[in-house]
């Protein structure tokens, strides 16, 4: 077989020779970005809850000191990890920890990579979630307070579910950003999709064809993730219809009300 001569010929050729490596790279990209984003989201939630703990005039001085200290630490965390590029964070964390003996050569690199993506994402998520919390009507928190819920309970049961629903588009953004930005992890020897593409391009010296394949793969990944998130959004909204219960004796008298014919 001669070397192919046209664009599609090369694409087919590259897929046949490098197909399994593209797949492996894609798998690694997905693993790191998905897991990292989810954990980052949880970190962001935790940070948001901690930062919004209220102080009343009854809060003791040591508690106030603790709260202020914690706020300072969390703010520093957010500023540092938003303010530095993830590629720098990756090198500093991985090679720094290696130098300090915190991790060893046998430490699975994907674990460290997920850790890096998580804390990086967490910093962004904390601010996104803070925006979502601000957008939730204050009355919701007041009603939760009036019923006797603690700060944690009102956040977890009332405020955060609504905040998260509001910020789903931003969360989708973070997923997409992470899928693409995971490529910088090749500096700590992660064989993700972009690094694999560089290998293919460097071996076969076909720029357009290789990166056309890569672009299509990235697009499929991000498109799928955003579609799934839209589904989750719709699920969070609940059904557009509800059933008015009929009387005890006659279930047939149940009426289903749809969004369009509700009263008032």
């Amino acid at each position, binding site marked *: *077989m001669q070397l192919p001569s046209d664009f599609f010929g090369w694409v087919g050729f590259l897929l046949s020779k490098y197909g399994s490596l593209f797949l492996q790279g894609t798998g690694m990209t997905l693993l790191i970005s998905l897991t990292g984003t989810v954990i980052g989201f949880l970190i962001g939630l935790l940070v948001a809850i901690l930062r919004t703990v209220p102080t009343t005039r009854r809060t003791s001085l040591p508690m106030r000191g603790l709260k202020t200290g914690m706020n300072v630490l969390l703010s520093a965390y957010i500023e540092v990890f938003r303010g530095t590029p993830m590629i720098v964070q990756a090198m500093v964390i991985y*090679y720094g920890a290696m130098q300090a003996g915190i991790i060893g050569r046998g430490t699975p690199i994907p674990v460290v990579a997920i850790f890096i993506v998580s804390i990086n994402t967490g910093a962004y998520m904390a601010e996104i979630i803070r925006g979502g919390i601000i957008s939730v009507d204050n009355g919701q928190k007041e009603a939760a307070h009036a019923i006797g819920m603690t700060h944690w309970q009102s956040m977890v049961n009332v405020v955060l579910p609504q905040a998260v629903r509001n910020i789903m588009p931003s969360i989708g953004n973070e997923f997409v950003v992470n899928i693409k930005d995971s490529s910088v992890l090749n500096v*700590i020897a992660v064989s993700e999709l972009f690094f*694999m593409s560089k*290998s293919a391009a460097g*071996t076969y010296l076909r*720029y357009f064809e290789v990166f056309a394949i890569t672009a299509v793969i990235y697009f499929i990944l991000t498109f799928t993730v955003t579609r799934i998130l839209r589904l989750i959004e719709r699920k969070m909204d609940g059904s557009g219809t509800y059933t008015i219960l009929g009387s005890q004796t006659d279930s047939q008298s149940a009426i289903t009300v749809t969004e369009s014919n509700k009263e008032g």
Partner: protein
Amino acid sequence: MKKIVSILLALAMLIGVSSAMAEGTLRVGMECNYAPFNWTQAEPSDFTVPIDGGAGYADGYDVQIAKKIAEGLGMDLVIVKTEWDGLPPAVTSGAIDAIIAGMSPTEERKATLDFTDPYYTSELVVVVKKDGAFAAATSLADFTGAAITAQLNTFHYTVIDQIPGVNKLPAMESFPAMIVALQSGAIDGYIAERPGAVADTTANPDLTFIKFDEGKGFTTSEADVSVAVALNKGSDLVAPINAILAGIDTDTRNQMMLDATARQPLSTAE
């Protein structure tokens, strides 16, 4: 959440400690993206070494040198595929033992890394279009007025100034990018090392490269056109590796390079 992360790290540390016990491993870092020095392929062969982490197999001149070194040191070879900018911190932090990645022992690099003796010395050529104005050039002067570029952050870019009256264009990121630029006419030629140029022109038969006879080509320092093994400052592997390299003479090296070039996926597309 932070608790879970620290537990994970602690576990990882345990795994790390236990496998560091496997003393006889030589971890070598390279990009595996630059045929015929080092590349990645999907299928194993008698010559390949599996890439750590399971993403393909590495082969190329650098891999073969690494094999000989590991054999000579009595250690198992592990190839850690890492992007170029991550290689120096990898070796200084101890994540890998050596860099065998077509890296030249420049003065700047010697500030942070120790280098062995060269394991390959190459010549600089200019890649041009076969039907272009410069296809018949034989000396640097023949390139007067040509639009020439080279790869970013390499000494290739500095030697362009040796061409009298050259039109030096901004450096470009990679060889595939320069091939595209050449084919589209954006540039008249780019600087490459001979093995790389052989690869480039095999993949793109509309290109050829100009090699210069003794005295008619670029003036370069030994450090610039050779590549050596980079190690952490103070590494005690420098002397043993030099001893092994001394046992591989120039003819053998040239043959190894020819073999690697013949083996690279482009040449063997069957």
